[in-house]
């Protein structure tokens, strides 16, 4: 089995606050799944449980075999390393230096930053820094890519462009992607399936299958079906929010 499966994951912090309650879902190999919800609904926490950075208090987790990579909210580049050296870092850490420089060049080419290989992070724009971060995550050929609101700090135009680039990379490398966001149209544009989450405690409120075929072009965002689906997801988020508030 190369799918990602969680079974009844729950997490209660030592202070008694329940961050996640009974979260179960499954996503197949090479699928694109988004976790959508307002801040505080535990979606980043869930992502960190999948990454085994946090242990759940209850439940179990099955991950696909192979490498895992994580793209953080901030680019999280090391300022003393050049772009090339930043992308190379995961290979250094796993002492996988064979063909490292070709692999790094290939990744820089893919994200369109070949000519910035020797620049330092502070010389790049926010969007370019995020591209470096993506290149670094993909350099190890991960089978599972976890993304924690990676484009949240970018302007809308850059964000949309990076969404399209991410899809291209996904279709090329066929990794399983779990994407955390609070942006409805971003989740719809990217995903095959969206889990709407609600806060206090974080749980899955509703699951949406997104029917649009890949490759998805930017015109998709202007279609009526797209708008309709975004509306349905927004309603679901608000409904879940009210539901949670009523039980608080």
């Amino acid at each position, binding site marked *: 089995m190369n799918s990602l499966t969680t079974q009844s994951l729950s997490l209660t912090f030592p202070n008694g606050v329940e961050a996640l309650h009974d979260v179960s879902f499954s996503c197949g190999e090479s699928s694109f799944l988004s976790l959508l919800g307002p801040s505080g609904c535990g979606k980043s926490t869930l992502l960190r449980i999948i990454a085994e950075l946090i242990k759940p208090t209850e439940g179990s987790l099955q991950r696909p075999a192979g490498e895992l990579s994580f793209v953080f*909210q*901030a680019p999280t580049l090391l300022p003393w390393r050049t772009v090339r050296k930043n992308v190379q870092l995961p290979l250094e850490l796993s002492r996988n230096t064979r063909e490292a420089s070709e692999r790094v060049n290939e990744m820089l080419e893919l994200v369109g930053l070949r000519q910035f290989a020797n620049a330092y992070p502070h010389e790049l724009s926010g969007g370019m820094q995020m591209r470096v971060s993506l290149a670094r995550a993909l350099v190890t050929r991960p089978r599972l890519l976890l993304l924690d609101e990676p484009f949240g700090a970018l302007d809308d135009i850059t964000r949309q462009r990076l969404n399209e680039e991410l899809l291209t990379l996904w279709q090329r490398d066929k990794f399983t992607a779990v994407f955390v966001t609070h942006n409805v149209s971003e989740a719809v544009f990217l995903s095959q399936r969206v889990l709407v989450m609600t806060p206090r405690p974080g749980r899955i409120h509703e699951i949406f299958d997104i029917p649009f075929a890949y490759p998805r072009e930017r015109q998709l965002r202007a279609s009526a079906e797209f708008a309709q689906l975004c509306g349905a997801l927004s309603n679901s988020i608000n409904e879940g929010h009210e539901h949670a508030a009523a039980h608080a």
Partner: protein
Amino acid sequence: MTSHSRRFITHYLLPPLALFILFLVAWHFYAAGIRFGETVIWKGTPAYFVPRPSAVWEAAREGREKLVTASLLTASGALAGFGASTLIGAVIAFIFSQSLLIQRAAYPYAIFLQTVPIVAIAPLIILWFGSGFTAIAISAFIVSLFPIIANGTHGLTAIDPQAMELFAIHRATRWQKLTKLRIPNSIPHFVTGMRTSSGLSVIGAIVGEFFAGFPGEKFGLGYLIYQTSGQQKIALLFAAIICSTLLGLAIFAAVGIAARLLLRRWVRGQ
């Protein structure tokens, strides 16, 4: 001349220079008095109270050998103390970063270094190490140690949590986290500590010399200040004070320039 260096001169060199000249003029008239013919507006001060700038210049010229020797001796004491505090401070910071328990146990005593008046323990230093170079270097060392420990420990431990997660996800070893994350992250913090320490080490050396100055023919600025103030050689005293200030500035500037060259890669957008 490039516009860059012209900008440097007009923005950073001329304003302090103009203020310095203004200060010299004010000092001169304060000491010499202001008169218009028979009318005395300000009668000035006696030379043993505030000497004129020209008298200080004269004294500095006359005593230049003494001043240069003294400055070099003080500089060597300060640099020895500064070098020792940089090395030992780095080692202590490293130990603190490796064990929170040791850090918690020992940090209060590191703060002790910061709060103890060096004047109060100078007699002990002389008792244990005798008068002379060692005592002065130790005095400079004690005064300049804490900023290295504090900034270094902070730089080794205050790591962006996401960077730590990145290293954890890629299963970095403890050694990799240290060499590829903690140590590079700490460099700018160490340099900040070194800047503060470099200035402090000169103060430490001069204070040390007050108590443990070199006996005999050769002595440092602190002892020169101590000696001239007792002998009412007020112009030479002023010259010695100015030398101390310039020495502190020179060491501070040297560390600053070295830091700028070293930190080019670390500094964002400069």
